[in-house]
């Protein structure tokens, strides 16, 4: 109770302060752009006196963003030759992408990269795709025709003050093209040594003020190789997806969009399975199994200006997915409503307030090995974000606060303060934030039987029951960042960010050894999901992009990460798995260098080199990867690409085995792809 009172006191202190700041700042400048209405009301003489910025609104926002942001454009994706969304993320600085087998990816930002990575908020067009079951992403199920992705926006570092929980180490937002930007009939087809067949078809057209697009895609991917490199493994993937998008310019100031997708995926896996999890009989079998993932979603969004400086945004979505793996069998439905009001240039500030309500219905088909309750949970949140701009917009301070509560937590606050000094050609920024990683479904209801080792002397067979009994609390994370960006010329950009992150209460498994005598007698010990580690991570990220000539672009990045975790408060040597997993999967360094060259108008050449390593433990020391692409455009609308991937290795393991699947070797691979656009 005292805690709640304290929280309310904090809010009561904070809100009047923010309002006071607003009122006191009335004479200050908010360097806003003229709106189209402003410009249309001017006469020609006035127009001739308006100063312009050569940056697009997006570039301007980018230069003035007080955070480590990066945008992977549609053209970056096309020219890199990647065939999946996680592979495209390798193009960004600070992201660690690794592939355990042909269909399982791990993506992490600033550490804790793992299949169970739980510190990222990943969205498609504003719809979160991380699940609240284990706070991670089933990357195998996240697909979209790559040609229809407008860009992928990545925020490294905390975004909790706006986006809320899970946006601890970063936010990835995959943004698809508006229907108006993909008009005509586009057909893509390709085949390769591992990408054994893929294609998609999309049709976009307009009717009055409504633009629409329909698409369907299908892909098959071959499995990897066994450890000895002689056998094909069963980790293939076959996927189908269909969808639509509709954008309606209801009026000059009201935009409505409606989009939806449905997918069906089958993949194979080689992993362990315990058919009979009882004391005396528990044994791990190694089996090939077939996984199925399916889902559908529909999202509607409205944006409207209700006054010249007040705009409203509302979004409703429904999402349903079904996962059927050997271990986890779940159906989850999400109903979500989001509402935001933006006041621009009010009291010379930009203020945004918003709220979000989500309900999730989760149904588990339990197996003897893995059990979770069927239930309905919810998340509710409110946020306020206030931006002050001074000195012709050169100096900005942004304060934000998000209050969030889910079914397992009380109200959690996530404040952040950011400041930036910038103009069109350079920026220096700093930020301090506090975010939370809130407990998930598994930490509140899991019972996962596993075979015991160590304390149980063979030939006796004992069990470890991994248990989520609700003892896990929110993990609190403080982050500090400083960064700079520079545009030495109109067509070049250099960015540098340094960060320090302090984690309190990192989740891990913990075996209660105090009941050793009882455990030995029953043959069962309990392993709890709870907060048992404190950690620190620091490092820096640097990236550049130079359009040296019209026909030559160079880009690249370097990331350095240093992490230290200590077991706290219980120092019994049991809480080592997260630390080990970090050592296996978070490299100290990673870099990427890319080149795009257009020798003639009809010919494109691209090369991208990626490196990550060294890893501090495990059998994988590091990975080199070289991808090359030649693109030919023989006639208008037609593009033919030849792509070679992983050219520096004939075959290699990119990651270790994990608790879900065994790793397989990834092979050197080639494919050919043709795209034809008829308008």
């Amino acid at each position, binding site marked *: 109770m005292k805690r709640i009172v304290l929280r309310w006191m904090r809010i009561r202190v*904070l809100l009047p302060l923010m309002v006071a700041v607003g009122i006191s700042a009335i004479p200050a400048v908010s360097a806003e752009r003229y709106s*189209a209405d402003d410009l249309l009301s001017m006469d*020609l003489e006035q127009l001739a006196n308006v100063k312009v910025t050569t940056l697009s609104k997006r570039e301007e926002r980018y230069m003035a963003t007080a955070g480590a942001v990066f945008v992977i454009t549609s053209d970056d994706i096309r020219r890199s030759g990647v065939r999946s969304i996680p592979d495209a993320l390798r193009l960004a600085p600070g992201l660690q992408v690794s592939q355990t087998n042909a269909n399982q990816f791990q993506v992490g930002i600033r550490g804790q990269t793992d299949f169970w990575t739980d510190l990222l908020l990943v969205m498609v067009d504003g719809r979160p795709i991380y699940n609240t079951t284990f706070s991670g992403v089933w990357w195998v199920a996240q697909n979209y025709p790559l040609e229809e992705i407008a860009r992928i926006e990545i925020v490294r570092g905390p975004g909790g003050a706006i986006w809320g929980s899970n946006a601890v180490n970063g936010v990835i937002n995959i943004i698809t093209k508006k229907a108006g930007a993909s008009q005509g009939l586009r057909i893509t087809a390709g085949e390769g040594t591992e990408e054994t067949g893929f294609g998609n078809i999309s049709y976009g057209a307009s009717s009055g003020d409504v633009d629409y697009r329909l698409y369907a895609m299908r892909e098959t991917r071959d499995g990897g190789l066994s450890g000895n490199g002689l056998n094909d493994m069963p980790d293939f993937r076959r996927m189908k997806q269909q969808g639509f998008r509709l954008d309606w310019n209801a009026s*000059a100031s009201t935009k409505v969009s409606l989009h939806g997708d449905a997918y069906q995926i089958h993949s194979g896996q080689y992993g362990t399975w315990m058919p009979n999890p009882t004391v005396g009989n528990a044994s791990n079998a190694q089996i090939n199994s077939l996984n199925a993932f399916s889902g559908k979603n529909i999202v509607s969004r409205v944006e409207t200006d209700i006054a010249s400086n007040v705009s409203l945004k509302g979004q409703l979505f429904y999402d349903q997915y079904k996962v059927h793996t050997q271990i986890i069998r779940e159906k989850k439905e999400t109903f979500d409503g989001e509402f935001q009001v933006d006041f621009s240039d009010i009291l010379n500030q930009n203020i945004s307030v918003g709220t979000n309500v989500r309900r999730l219905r989760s149904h588990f088909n339990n197996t003897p090995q893995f059990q979770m309750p069927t239930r309905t949970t919810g998340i509710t949140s409110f946020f306020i974000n206030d931006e002050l701009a*001074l000195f012709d917009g050169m100096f900005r301070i942004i304060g934000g606060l998000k209050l969030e509560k889910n079914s397992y937590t009380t109200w959690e606050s996530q404040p952040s303060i950011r400041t930036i000094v910038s103009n069109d050609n350079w920026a220096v920024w700093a930020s301090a934030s506090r975010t939370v990683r809130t407990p998930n479904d598994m930490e509140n209801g899991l019972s996962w039987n596993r075979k015991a080792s160590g304390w149980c002397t063979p030939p006796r067979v004992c069990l470890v029951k991994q248990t989520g009994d609700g003892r896990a609390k929110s993990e609190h994370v403080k982050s500090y960042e400083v960064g700079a960006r520079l545009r030495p010329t109109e067509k070049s950009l250099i960015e540098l960010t340094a960060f320090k992150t302090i984690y309190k209460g990192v989740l891990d498994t913990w075996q209660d050894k105090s009941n050793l005598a009882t455990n030995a007698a029953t043959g069962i010990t309990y392993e709890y999901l709870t907060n048992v580690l404190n950690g620190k991570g620091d490092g820096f990220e640097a990236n550049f992009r130079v359009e040296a000539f019209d026909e030559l672009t160079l880009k690249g990045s370097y990331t350095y990460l240093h992490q230290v975790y200590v077991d706290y408060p219980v120092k019994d040597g049991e809480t080592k798995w997260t630390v080990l997993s970090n050592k296996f999967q978070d490299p100290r360094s990673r870099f990427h260098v890319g080149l795009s060259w257009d020798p003639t108008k009809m010919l494109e050449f691209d090369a991208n080199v990626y490196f990550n390593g060294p890893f501090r433990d495990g059998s994988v020391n590091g990975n080199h990867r070289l991808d090359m692409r030649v693109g030919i455009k023989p006639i208008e609308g037609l593009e033919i690409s030849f792509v070679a991937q992983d050219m520096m290795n004939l075959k290699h393991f990119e990651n270790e085995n994990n608790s879900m699947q065994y790793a397989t070797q990834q092979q050197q691979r080639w494919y050919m792809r043709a795209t034809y656009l008829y308008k």
Partner: protein
Amino acid sequence: MRLFLNNNCRILCGCLLALLLSLHPIGSSIAAEKNRAGISDLKAVYVFNFIRFTEWPTSDVHRKGISINVLSEEDVYDRLKNIIAKPVAKGLGLSVQSCEQDRCIRNSSVLYIGESGRQDFKQLLKQLEGEAVLTISDIPGFAEQGGMVEIKYHNKKLTFVVNLQAVKRAGFYISAQLLQLGEIVGRDNE
């Protein structure tokens, strides 16, 4: 844990308070006004104004409306699309399309050529010779090389250049109000 939360709150409140105090003394010394625009926003508004101050030689535009084709310039196309939906533009019967190469000439009353259409513009102008199509572009030297109106970026502002010969040859009449604010090339005596 509570100590951590309170510290954090104190830091945030402290920063906001510092901001509050720092704004008071300097507040009155700086003016509150907007002073710049996105280059594409301004280009689109210029295009709209060029159309407003121009009379077409044929009566077709009165009957069919004015069709604006935009080549190689998505930003300006997006802005124009928004402008033509506004009440101020409704009476002019405007429509706008994004187009590619030769298709740009068809059914066009105004052709806007973006800078990346630099390679094709001379050929397009040749094909348009004698047609009542108002050609506008931000390609440097566009007006000197036969285009009708060139939007020019100079000293962080936008100005424009009108090629009078090209305008008259196509039978357009451009209001003096517009001409007196722009730079003129191709006068009769030049």
